[in-house]
């Protein structure tokens, strides 16, 4: 073992030395330090999985890590779930190219969290067991509500998975010089291994480790950048505006008109509160107190991370932009300007090299890879739970199934989702998938969130109202995305969009709430009456936690 390590370190050093001599580090061949760190990370996470597998015996262990994760750990894991490679590379890339607009975007991603804390986190923990459908169907009819909730969850998960896996394939291709298909299969296989063997416990710890590495790496980069400018933002911004343009200090084109602005805000706020893999994290803690502590820590980590990405974006402007080392000359010859290798999303990666050389580039590359793995694992687990717990155990078997069988189905679903993710990842390689994450957020905001929120707080909600209104919200979101500029014009090449706005959430969320309201209040059936009467008991449990699921004994 020691020999292998020595060999790896020596070869990494040789590579480092040769890179220094030739100065062609950005030629995307093999980056040895990246590969060494990547192996260390994969080894460590497989170790975690092995350790977790021994502790994952029951369905409760599998879905919620036994419910014994602390608030701090869960806050870190939530941050690990939320700080995806897309937000690390995408937002720092947006700051790099557009300046202030990147900050506007990241603020939108953050403000959903306080609302989750004030409205959702505690009742969710007190009422649910494994999935958010547990809460939505608490006093409503299991079959239809769980089917709809599971459909909303699985759609959100698959869309999000496609976005992550296509992005990851391209990133790994760029960072490690692997073939795209190989990269996608590698990600798919590793995520299936973590989830099937280690369940929620392994997924949680992979997320915690990754959140720590990402925060540490981003902190180092931000400090290294600030140290160049005597820790003065004024000096950093002054240099950046000299290199680029004064416009990067002001809002640009991201928020063009008030309707789009509000619609994007609604999608990000309520979408976050309707993402199944995020909601599922609240069942891993022991009680409502730990649930609220999780959000507090998570908001802190995520907010801190977004401030770092802002500094990193500006750091990339001053240290990467116009730096001949990172210039994509082939692209420049065609398009002019100063494009960087791999596009704007690579700004943070190039910056890591500019501040810390090959070694740190390797570290950040490995962290980016870890980030992808952690996020796709959380997503897969949430999707598999919707299939096994909601569709299989509750709808199909009507709850008459033992935990071990349910867990087996969940593992099979994980493998199934892994295969789907790999196939979709390869199929969508050359497609423009910019709309996919937006669509996932729109569906989460328009179908999952209204049902969940109203089931917690609105006495008059009935099964009929939730099913029809939720379906209206889902359909409106999908149709408006298809008719909007991202699909109708960019993808289907029509001249102008039928629906003018990029973000449909404002309209689809209103449609969902109005639909649920109308079809609930006009519901005079016997079932509806019983559902309204059951609200009182549900509300007491949601407020006090009396009767809530506790942590498992071992």
């Amino acid at each position, binding site marked *: 073992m020691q020999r292998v390590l020595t060999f790896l370190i020596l070869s990494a050093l040789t590579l480092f030395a040769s890179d220094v001599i030739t100065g062609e580090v950005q030629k995307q061949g093999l980056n040895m330090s990246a590969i060494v760190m990547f192996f260390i990370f994969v080894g460590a996470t497989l170790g975690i999985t092995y350790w977790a597998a021994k502790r994952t015996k029951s369905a409760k262990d599998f879905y919620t890590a036994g419910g014994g994760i602390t608030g701090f750990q869960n806050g870190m894991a939530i941050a690990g779930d939320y700080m995806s490679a897309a937000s690390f590379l995408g937002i720092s890339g947006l700051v790099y190219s557009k300046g*202030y607009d990147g*900050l*506007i975007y*990241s*603020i*939108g991603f*953050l*403000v959903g*969290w*306080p*609302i989750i*804390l*004030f*409205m959702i986190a*505690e009742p969710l923990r007190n009422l649910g067991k494994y999935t958010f459908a547990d809460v939505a169907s608490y006093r409503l009819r299991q079959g239809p509500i769980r089917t709809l909730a599971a459909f909303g969850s699985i759609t959100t998960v698959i869309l999000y998975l496609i976005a992550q896996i296509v992005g990851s394939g391209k990133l790994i291709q760029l960072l490690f010089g692997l073939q795209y298909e190989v990269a996608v299969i590698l990600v798919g296989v590793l995520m299936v291994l973590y989830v099937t063997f280690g369940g929620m416990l392994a997924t949680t710890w992979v997320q915690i480790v990754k959140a720590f590495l990402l925060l540490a790496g981003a902190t180092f980069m931000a400090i290294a950048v600030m140290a160049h400018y005597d820790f003065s*933002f*004024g000096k950093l*911004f*002054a240099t950046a*505006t000299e290199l680029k343009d*004064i416009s990067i*200090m*002001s*809002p*640009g084109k991201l*928020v*063009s*008109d*008030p309707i*789009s*602005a*509000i619609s994007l*805000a609604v999608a990000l*706020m309520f979408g976050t509160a309707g993402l199944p893999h995020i909601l599922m994290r609240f069942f891993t803690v022991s009680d409502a*107190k730990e649930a*609220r*502590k999780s*959000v*507090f820590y998570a*908001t*802190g980590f995520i*907010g801190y991370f*977004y*401030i770092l990405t802002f500094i990193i974006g500006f750091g990339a402007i001053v240290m990467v932009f116009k730096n001949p080392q990172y210039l994509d000359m082939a692209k420049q010859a065609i398009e002019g300007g100063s494009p960087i290798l791999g596009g704007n999303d690579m700004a943070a990666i190039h910056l890591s090299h500019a501040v810390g050389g090959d070694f740190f580039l390797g570290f950040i590359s490995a962290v980016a890879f870890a980030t992808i793995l952690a996020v796709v694992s959380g997503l897969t687990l949430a999707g598999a739970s919707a299939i096994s717990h909601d569709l299989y155990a509750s709808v199909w078997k009507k709850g008459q199934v033992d935990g071990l069988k349910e867990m087996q189905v969940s593992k099979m679903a994980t493998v199934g989702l892994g295969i789907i993710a790999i196939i979709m990842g390869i199929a969508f390689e050359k497609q423009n998938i910019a709309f996919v994450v937006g669509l996932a957020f729109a569906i989460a905001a328009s179908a999952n969130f209204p049902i969940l929120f109203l089931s917690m707080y609105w006495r008059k909600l009935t099964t009929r109202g939730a099913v029809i209104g939720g379906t209206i919200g889902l359909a409106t979101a999908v149709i408006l995305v298809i008719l909007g500029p991202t699909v109708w014009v960019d993808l289907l090449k029509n001249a102008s969009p039928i629906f003018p706005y990029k973000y449909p959430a404002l309209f689809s969320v209103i449609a969902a709430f109005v639909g649920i309201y109308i079809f609930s209040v006009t519901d005079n059936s016997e079932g509806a009456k019983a559902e309204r009467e059951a609200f*009182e*008991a549900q509300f*007491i*449990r949601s*407020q*006090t*936690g*009396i*009767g809530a699921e506790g942590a498992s004994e071992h």
Partner: protein
Amino acid sequence: MRKELVEKIKNDPNYIELVTKRTAFSIKLTIAILVVYFAFILTIAFDPTLLGTPMSSDSVTTIGIPIGMAVIVFAFILTGIYTRRANTEFDDLSNKIKKSVKDL
């Protein structure tokens, strides 16, 4: 949950206090974050140049930078305020309720 338990908790003054206070507090804080965020985003939508005003005549830093950072910090502080009060006052109330129905 059995019917007599529901009836008992429903009329428990501690429960009524918990629900009234927490609901009011949650709504206030939700409104606070919504007002701050929408004020920020709508200022940008209606008057994009306003946040682009330089901090001082010899500085390139615009007032939008500290304001944007402040929104992030504000969101975090609100979660802290809520968590602190809920961990003490609200949890005390729900523990009292739990105690009073332990034998039921």
